[in-house]
């Protein structure tokens, strides 16, 4: 079970804002999902941490320079930019 408070701090971590009028509904939805996740509680689990699904190791890259993309391409999708930088305005 997740309380309203917990839900709000989860949202804070996830950088989501929950309007107060939607909080109750969302809490109910989340609790139903968490109940569903809780079904694993009763399953015994004894072995070690599972590794990675592909069992590969030591996949490396050489330290060789490749040309970077031009500044205009990097900034192409940014809504706000200035002086070659991504711009985050203090306020809208």
């Amino acid at each position, binding site marked *: 079970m997740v309380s309203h408070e917990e839900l709000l701090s989860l949202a804070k971590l996830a*950088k*989501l804002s929950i309007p107060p009028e939607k909080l109750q509904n969302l809490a109910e939805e989340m609790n139903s999902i968490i109940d569903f996740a809780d079904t694993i509680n009763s399953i015994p689990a004894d072995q070690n*941490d*599972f590794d990675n699904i592909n069992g*590969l190791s030591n996949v490396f890259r050489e330290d060789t320079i490749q040309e970077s993309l031009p500044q205009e391409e990097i900034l192409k999708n*940014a809504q706000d930019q200035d002086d070659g930088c991504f711009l*985050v305005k203090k*306020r809208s």
Partner: protein
Amino acid sequence: MDSYSTIRKIQEGLLHREYSCEELTKSYLDAIERDNQILNSYVTVTPQEAFSAAKRVDQKIAAGKPLSPLEGVPMTLKDNLSTNKIPTTCCSKILSGYTPIYDAAVWETLKAQNAILLGKTNMDEFAMGSTCETSCYGGAKNPHNLKRVPGGSSGGGASAVCANLAAYALGSDTGGSIRQPASFCGVVGLKPTYGAVSRYGLIAFASSFDQIGPIAGCAEDAALVFDAISSYDERDSTCSGRKGAPCAESLNQSIKGMKIGIPKEYYEGLRPGVQKALEDAQKTYQELGCKLIPLALPELQYALPVYYILACAEASSNLGRYDGIRYGYKTERYNDLNEMICKTRSEGFGAEVQRRILLGTYVLSSGYYDAYYKKAQILRGKIVDAFQSAFQKCDIILAPTVPVTALPQHYSSNAVDNYRTDICTVPVNIAGLPGISVPCGKDEDNMPVGMQLIGKKFGEATILRAAHQYEKAARDTVFCPVKMGVEK
């Protein structure tokens, strides 16, 4: 092009000059213009890209040069595959206007072969969903019955192939997103082994589950596409590429004596029409000389919660980057940075995506990590082991793709109810195995039923062969495109 043609037939037509590639392309684009308003399979149509590739193909044919296996064949990409200079939105408001500056590895490969890209197809937002309805563009429709969903999350691709608006589509599958819509729409959908196809350029949902694969009209077409897109790509550290010879070369080998596992847990709670179609399929395989091996896979009972815990955990991390600063939607009014980011994300993400991000954040958060994420990882290992043991007794596994057929639109507002349709597909992603959905009949409502063939790791050739042999034997189940509206 109203009647269905396989990839090989399409190319034969080109080489025999029955039509030019430009004419071929135009006929598909005309069909899209006519039918997409009803089906909503496509969210972006790319006639310029398509025609310039078609031109190159026609020049090649005129010069007498041989064609690569997929050259000149009209196709589509799911809208979570990055296409340089072509909008890629994952059908989410938060990526509205985003135009990638690079191509996904699979698109690079197909573009080099002059695949004719007709457009980008509709999907559940960020691939999170099983109906295509969480798309910010509204859901696609199932051509078999417009009141039913095409499935998800690759709903647009499956409905496009179903209605012959593309010869094949590339989709992505994290918990069933290729196989389930293929099943609902009566087409073939292949999810390769995890690591067989490069994920570079696939906008990530759950990194240790996502795979790109083909949706097509038959097993041979799926094999041709899989062979083309499964080359090793050094940019994806988790990719090893296809192992062994191209699958299309061994489709006609006999499957007599093949051992087909039948796990009893997979056959519980099926819709009667689905049950019957699967039983018929089993009979067909027996007639082909295969041996049915009963199996027990009790580990499947916890596959669904394990999947949702792990996939949502990875998703919550993968989706952290959407904050409006470098690309995509940005909220209009804010007073400080934190407010900007929170509002952007809350306005840009749909409800299902936000729920999954919250679940993922919850299972990773301190105090809960051990009980959820860590435990789910251990259980994942158990499911991997269970399949490994099963495959010591059989060569492939036969199961339904979904316990039901295509659901009505807006089936359930309850998230967990919607998750349950993934029950047959999810275990395959958990174990990283290849799985293919093949149409095997219709149910009481005349809606397509899909059977799922699950193979060993890198065993695509085996399941494709079993699928192909089935198609040859059970002619009445073979895909036939659904004709949509009347000609104008």
